[in-house]
């Protein structure tokens, strides 16, 4: 046997799952897709006494889009997000980010909420959700609160979730009209953990000036660079503008060194990706205005 012993619980409703979380608190781990949790258990890096399997809670898996927002149930599979025509049309950044996650076999099982709650530094969906100003619905047995994605990710693999709370839903508001987007990432091979990543959304006004800008980089935790976003407003897209913005974006970026890359390399790569992301988002914003982009 690879993992240490645990008690297995398979609730079939949110209420039942929250009851179990309240009962077992920090001795429990919720199991969603298991694509990060189970490797950690197989290595015995973690040994939860209780495993609360959310895969039987069918009310937690959905994609619902209306005019105002996209609501994603926490256990929606990443592959479903990637393949949804509605997501591709209105939140293409999410589709593009999802396509970078591991491999198809991983995305078939891995969930949107699981990736967010795991909060791995190189993960794609946290960066995308911060960029899109998503809000997360966190529930315990007797409490329900909504936290912005930026406030949800606290640090390396650390989120605002309390031990008895579950992430139930992620809400992403509609992008401004004609917004362009880009998700950029560097990894040694396709599907490997990202060494660096950047996501951008830009929208232009009728004069071709930027009136909406979002830029987020991967770091020890996703970092939205508001100062840089603000500095882009009212400007015309240009290579020089984006090159300068990208350099400023990495000024306070925290990165760690490991066997795969130094912190310095990761910062440099983030700057290059930020520049490319802004440039591609600008090109797409122009295409959207012309109505030629798909």
């Amino acid at each position, binding site marked *: 046997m690879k993992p240490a012993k645990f008690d297995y619980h398979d609730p079939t409703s949110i209420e039942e799952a929250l009851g179990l979380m309240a009962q077992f608190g920090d001795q429990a781990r919720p199991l969603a897709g*298991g694509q990060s949790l*189970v490797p950690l258990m197989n290595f015995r890096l973690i040994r939860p006494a209780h495993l609360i399997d959310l895969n039987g809670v069918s009310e937690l898996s959905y994609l619902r889009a209306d005019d105002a927002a996209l609501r994603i149930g926490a256990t929606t599979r990443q592959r479903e997000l990637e393949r949804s025509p509605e997501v591709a049309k209105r939140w293409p950044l999410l589709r593009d980010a999802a396509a970078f996650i591991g491999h198809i076999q991983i995305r078939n*099982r891995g969930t949107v909420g699981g990736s967010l709650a795991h909060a791995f530094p190189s993960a794609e969906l946290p960066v995308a959700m911060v960029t899109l100003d998503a809000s997360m619905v966190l529930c315990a047995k007797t409490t329900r609160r909504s936290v912005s994605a930026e406030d949800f990710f606290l640090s390396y693999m650390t989120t605002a979730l309390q031990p008895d709370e579950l992430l139930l839903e992620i809400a992403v508001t509609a992008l401004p009209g004609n917004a362009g987007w880009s998700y950029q990432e560097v990894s040694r091979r396709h599907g490997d953990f990202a060494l660096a990543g950047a996501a951008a959304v830009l929208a232009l006004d009728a004069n071709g000036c930027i009136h909406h800008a979002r830029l987020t980089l991967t770091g020890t935790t996703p970092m939205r660079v508001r100062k840089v976003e603000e500095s882009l407003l009212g400007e015309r897209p240009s290579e020089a503008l984006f090159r300068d913005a990208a350099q400023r974006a990495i000024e306070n970026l925290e990165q760690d060194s490991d066997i795969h890359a130094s912190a310095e390399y990761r910062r440099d790569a983030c700057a290059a990706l930020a520049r490319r992301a802004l440039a591609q988002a600008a090109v797409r914003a122009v295409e959207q205005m012309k109505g030629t982009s798909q």
Partner: protein
Amino acid sequence: MSTRQVRLTINGREYSGEVEPRKLLTDFLRDDLGLTGTHVGCEHGVCGACTVLFNGEPVRSCLLFAVQANGAELKTVEGIAPNATELHPLQEKFWELHGLQCGFCTPGILLTAEALLKEIPNPSEAEVREWLSGNLCRCTGYQNIVTAIQEAAKTLSERRT
């Protein structure tokens, strides 16, 4: 020690067993049910050798607990061939075109490829490589695997017409 009853369908046949919740699906298939075609490689979701079709979709069986497969429909490499004397076109083409050397990664690759051809009947080389990115092969360099999958796609589409 508490155990759980698992009932599932594998390759069209009903199976059941008593498992500890921590037993991985891979180990259940191999040790309890004797279906040793599913290979155990890295046991942490990286290599793809243990890939099976879980309700039609390729997944890592080393990242699932056997209890989670209760009620599921699985396909393993033992279920790919239409009968005891015939091979699946994928198997034939892998054989013919040297799509394997040591064969350790082959079961996982065959199942990934079968799912690919169901979704994209005539995949481009880029599409084949995208799907294969989750299956590691240390012998072949992938070239003949890609060719074999594309050739099998042709055989399958000829059969349909």
